[in-house]
């Protein structure tokens, strides 16, 4: 099995999907000859031609809006937004149009499309090249929101997203693009959406996380294990629709829960997980649920490493709920 970085796995997924289905088209800013600023689309224009992988004018609204039109008329668009921070001109197209098309037309019109975009900090990108905006989109019925954390999942989840009948926002943790190489199966396969992944088994504390926070939580769990606290780590993978059964089961197993995300805390995804558990499994809880998140501030530049949750902060929360 080849070993690939996460961004290479994204590239492999796009090629696999395009070879498999002529209707898959990839477009966005700089995705053509340059191959994308992170090289996620490298080699696509040369293999599939300019009609299937191409650059667009600098308009996220145009990119996503035209994707909706393509999707309703037989193409399978995979639009790239260069940075998640620049998706907001397309917010209207995603939230008002793509996500609501099936519902408002009584199922006559649909938008099977993917918007891929790198999110998150760790590249010294300051306010506008670092944000984690998943919560804005998770508040959008009709949209699916997917975030991989490993190369194999990136490929399997992206192919599943492209083949999905509904619009999917596919958020790629840019801090993990080249962080590790791991085995990725060759050829076509899918990883089902709305299923979480157990990263690590443990009986004392359950840590819920996704994307770039997964390796941070793994490091914290190793340190916790060294002092006798065994953590289960759950990678949510799909935030919407969420694998609610899986979350509740994992929470009940330990009765002690930590939720970790890089995005700001207030109305963040951790609030949804906490509420889900509080509503359905409070009687299993041995300790208050702890959240480890980015601060409720814009994303700083020089001090970004203080803003982003690191293994110290996660470990501190693990110790706190374990000792409660």
């Amino acid at each position, binding site marked *: 099995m080849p070993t690939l970085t996460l961004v290479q796995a994204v590239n492999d997924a796009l090629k696999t999907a395009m070879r498999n289905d002529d209707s898959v088209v990839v477009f966005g800013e700089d995705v053509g000859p340059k191959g994308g600023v992170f090289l996620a689309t490298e080699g696509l224009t040369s293999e599939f031609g300019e009609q299937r992988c191409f650059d667009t004018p600098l308009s996220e*609204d145009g990119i996503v809006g035209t994707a909706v039109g393509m999707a309703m008329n037989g193409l399978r668009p995979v639009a790239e937004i260069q940075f998640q921070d620049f998706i*907001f001109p397309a917010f209207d197209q995603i939230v008002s149009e793509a996500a609501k098309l099936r519902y408002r037309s009584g199922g006559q019109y649909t938008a099977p499309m993917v918007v891929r975009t790198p999110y998150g900090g760790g590249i*010294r990108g300051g306010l*506008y090249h670092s944000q984690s905006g998943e919560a804005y989109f998770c508040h959008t019925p009709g949209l699916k929101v997917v975030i991989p954390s490993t190369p194999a999942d990136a490929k399997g989840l992206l192919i599943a997203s492209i083949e999905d009948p509904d619009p999917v926002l596919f958020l790629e943790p840019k801090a993990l693009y080249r962080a590790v190489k791991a085995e990725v199966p060759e050829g076509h396969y899918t990883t089902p959406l709305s299923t979480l992944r157990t990263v690590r088994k443990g009986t004392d504390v359950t840590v819920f996380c996704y994307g770039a926070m997964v390796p941070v939580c793994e490091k914290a769990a190793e340190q916790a294990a060294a002092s006798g606290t065994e953590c289960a780590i759950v990678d949510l993978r799909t935030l919407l629709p969420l694998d609610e059964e899986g979350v509740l089961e994992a929470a009940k197993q330990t009765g002690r829960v930590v939720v970790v995300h890089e995005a700001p805390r207030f109305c963040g995804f951790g609030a949804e997980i906490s509420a889900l558990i509080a509503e359905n499994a409070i009687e299993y809880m041995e300790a208050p649920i702890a959240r480890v998140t980015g*601060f409720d*501030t814009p994303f700083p530049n020089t001090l970004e490493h203080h803003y982003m949750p690191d293994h110290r902060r996660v470990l501190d929360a693990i110790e706190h709920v374990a000792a409660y």
Partner: protein
Amino acid sequence: MTATQPVSVIEPDGTTQGHDPGLSDEGLLHAYRTMLTVRAFDDTCMKLQRAGRIGFSIPNKGIEATQVGAASALRRTDWLFPSYRDFGMALYHGVEPVEMMHNMYGNARDTSKGRQMPVHFSFLDPIHFYSISSPIGTHLPHAVGAAYAMKVRGEDKVALVSFGDGGTSSLGFHSGMNFAGVWKVPVVFLCQNNGWAISCPSEAQTASDGYAVKAMAYGMPGVTVDGNDLLAVRQVVSEAVERARAGEGPTLIEARTFRMGGHSTSDDPTRYVPAELLAEWEERDPVARFERYLEARGLWKPEDRDRLYAEAAAKVNAAAKEAEGVGPPALESIFTDVYADVPAHLRRQGQATFDLARRKGDAAAGDGEFPL
């Protein structure tokens, strides 16, 4: 109403048809030195980025005449709404290289308090150089709104907003132009058509014949100017500024130029910029063009270039050294300026951070690299 043939003033040999630049000899030399300082700033930042001292920079080579020519048409009481590639506008009006270097290092003396990426400057003095936002095109409506305020407050001021060819595809371009036309406010739109939006050539950005023609649809004049000709840019921007001051409304100016470097320090333009095209534009280097003009006026000799560049570089290098010696912003700065007052939840988050640092040590800086 709309001219697509670029206005130019300086002939290839440096002469003009008796053009009055409206600048003294010292003023002309200040414009020249500013262009050299931009080059020195570029060169230094490239080295600093390669050496890992700063994370990122934006090259300006090729577009110095547009920046400096346009800036020279403004008074210091006017407002600039710049793009991230407008170093020369700040320098021309007297922002010191060291103030810019504080931002490049994101240190405690950076006017943005180390919160923004490099090249995202923000200055109030000696001219309003509006805080730069990364999202392309968002600042055009801001300039229009500020110009509206100038009009209703009866201020004798003009707003100049600068953006790229790529920026004309943004929502902000279209709403900004439309509102400005309807409101007839004192704003000048300067589109720096440098041929590229990262790797996307200008021809892929629009099907119209250049960008100035877009003015017609919004009911304002559009002018195309040779962006490598400092005096031509100065002339057309001055005319637009005068119109604005006289209450005659906005103008769109397209400055045709060429980005002779990469999009940024992380970009490799040889992957997509045809070598012949670059060579063609190198022949039209805006600094050399202005040198020939100064020489024809007896203000410059070839041996001046190295000396004056060295002076500019020494100043920029000293600025980098000084900025490097200033430490990072205080941890508290993460939590201030979110609102006028720090609300209770942010005070709690800050306190928890300081406590954790005491108990478990400081967070470690990462080594992530900026990709574009």
